[in-house]
């Protein structure tokens, strides 16, 4: 295991931020730490990095106990924090160069890696710009370049796409995948389930400082009863129709709201076909039909009873 966290407890007075948190991150994976704001993701990362003291538990990185003085471990870690942490008075190139030189002593190597990192985040044409001249998305990319320039084996990204435009977000997510393909193990925290679903090979869902579910996205989705969610736009819906649809095989929930019929069913074949047959037979006209597979939000909702973004 690249990272092994066991029984981690962190308290702020009476508030338990991490409640016997266990995590294991294997080499080569993109590990997603998914949870709503305040669930303990950043606290967990700060403890893993030895920035925060913790009350109980153990943390191992690369098979060695992690501590603030573990410089041999730190040299192989790249960190991209939630907030942009660059120097306003240094240009894009100088910022990346500075943070790279914290890890690499060889001057020529630092230069080479700096150029490579700038290319990686596509900031070549902004290399002489000062950070205040960059847009939010470009600034985030600079932040990433500063964290990965030294080619770390383990990269920790703590909500790197907060307040980023869709175009930059896609670039960042593609970049993370590329870093992983080049051999880096990634820990990615986010409260955006779509991002975690899109890039993570293994996911831990965290709430109130505890891991409430973990596995691949398919494993997580298989844990819950919803197999399919069908939404049908209709202006002829009524109470009788709702009750009749509830009696269909696999269907366990039917709701009619704002001329939209929302049907949740267990995993099973031809759920949609049966429902459309029923609507045709009863000459109920309908508009748009949307079928969705369960999302990680549904997983979170079923386990905790609340939305992921609450």
């Amino acid at each position, binding site marked *: 295991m690249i990272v092994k966290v066991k029984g981690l407890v962190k308290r*702020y007075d009476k508030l338990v931020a991490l409640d016997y948190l266990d995590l294991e991150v294997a080499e080569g994976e993109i590990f997603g730490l998914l949870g709503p704001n305040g669930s303990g993701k950043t606290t967990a990362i*700060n403890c893993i*990095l*030895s*920035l*925060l*003291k913790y009350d109980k538990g153990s943390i191992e990185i690369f098979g060695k106990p992690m501590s*603030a*003085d573990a*410089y*041999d471990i*730190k*040299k192989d*870690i790249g*960190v991209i*924090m939630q*907030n*942009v*942490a*660059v*120097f*306003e*008075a*240094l240009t894009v190139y*100088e910022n990346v*160069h*500075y*943070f790279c*030189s*914290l*890890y690499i002593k060889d*001057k020529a190597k*630092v230069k080479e890696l700096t150029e490579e990192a700038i290319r990686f985040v596509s900031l070549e044409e902004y290399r002489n710009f000062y950070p205040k001249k960059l847009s939010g998305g470009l600034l985030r990319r600079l932040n990433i370049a*500063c*964290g990965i320039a030294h080619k770390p084996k383990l990269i920790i990204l703590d909500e790197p796409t907060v307040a980023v435009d869709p175009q930059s977000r896609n670039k960042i997510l593609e970049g993370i995948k590329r870093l992983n393909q080049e051999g880096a193990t990634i820990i990615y925290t986010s409260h955006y389930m779509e991002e975690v679903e899109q890039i993570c090979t293994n996911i831990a869902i965290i709430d109130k400082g505890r891991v409430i579910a973990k596995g691949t996205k398919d494993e997580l989705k298989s844990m819950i009863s919803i197999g399919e969610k069908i939404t049908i736009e209709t202006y002829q819906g009524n109470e009788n129709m709702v009750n009749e649809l509830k009696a269909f095989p696999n269907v366990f929930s039917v709701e009619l709201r704002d001329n939209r019929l929302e049907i949740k069913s267990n995993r099973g074949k031809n759920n949609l076909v049966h429902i459309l047959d029923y609507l045709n037979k009863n000459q109920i006209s309908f508009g748009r039909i949307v079928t969705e597979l369960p999302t990680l939000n549904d997983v979170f909702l079923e386990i905790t009873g609340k939305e992921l973004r609450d």
Partner: protein
Amino acid sequence: MFQLYKARLKCLVRSKENIFWSYLFPILLATCFYFTFGNLWTFEDYESISIAYVSEGGQDDALKMAMEEAHTDNGTPLFVVNYTSEKEASKLLEDNEIEAYILGDSDPKLYIKNNGLNETIIKSFLDSYRRTSITVQTILNNNPKALEEGLLDDLMEAETFVYEVDNGKRPDVMLIYFYSLLAYTCLFASGWGLDEVINIQANQSHRGARVSVSPVHKMKLFLSNMLAAITAQAGGITLLFIYLYNILKIDFGDSLFPVIVTCMVGSFTGLALGAMVGALGKGKVESKEAIVTAIVLGSSFLTGMMIVNIKYIICKFAPFLNYINPAALITDALYSLYYYDSLHLFYINIGILSGLTVVFGFIAFLGIRRKTYASI
């Protein structure tokens, strides 16, 4: 380490705010002081005061003679006297042609329009004359032969009202302003010190968190950052010193080396003070900046940078403050170099200042050595 030092130095000298407050502001202030208060007390530039003497109603020859003979220490006549009527004198005063007029009588009366240094000199002169007249009158009443016996010779000698102190060094009120300004600039290094500590503390800044997860020892980062801050501060203080010494021709005494030492130690004190405030507690960066600014301005104020009399008031009513106020220690070290041939007082001031620097530095070290935090 040189790479880290170079990058930090770039950050410091590229900050327009830093450059303005540490490099340009002291020079602007020095220029303002020079043109506002410049040569206020300079002896060579003393100009005789125009006054009028009204002899109507009984001419007092002794007073007339005293006025004509009064002079400064280097022989410049104290007054230019116009002999005129009271009506004319009043008009001259109204038109600012004269500073005052004296109505000669057995009890001379002084008429002035404004309050100022010249009016003070005229009043001092007249008070002195009155005291001398009464004394002479009393002696002559008791011993009519006193005049013949030469007993009044000393009394009759004209008093010097503007004089130079001994060892060729004049008490120059301007020095209070310029020395305080130099002390202020030294202590303004606290801003650099604060910045450097904030930038390596994970619980104070995002940059601090980022460098804290790097494999560089915190003390190494601190040292390279402080070296950059010292370099930047040295630039500012050198620029100001050259401006004061070579352009404004401010007198720093006979030997420049101890003056440079004072500036160096003062700058270290400023850096250590800022580092200490930065390392103590988790308060907001803005609050810490406000604390540092308040300390620097407050300590400079107590040395007379804004109101020159404060220096005198502190000396009289709370002299102990001068032993814990870094700005006062810097200015006192500079005064001692200017006024005294002995370095005894200089060593005392520099010794206490160095002690304060060590204390500030040690407290800063205790705060900085922490690597993990209870909260960030």
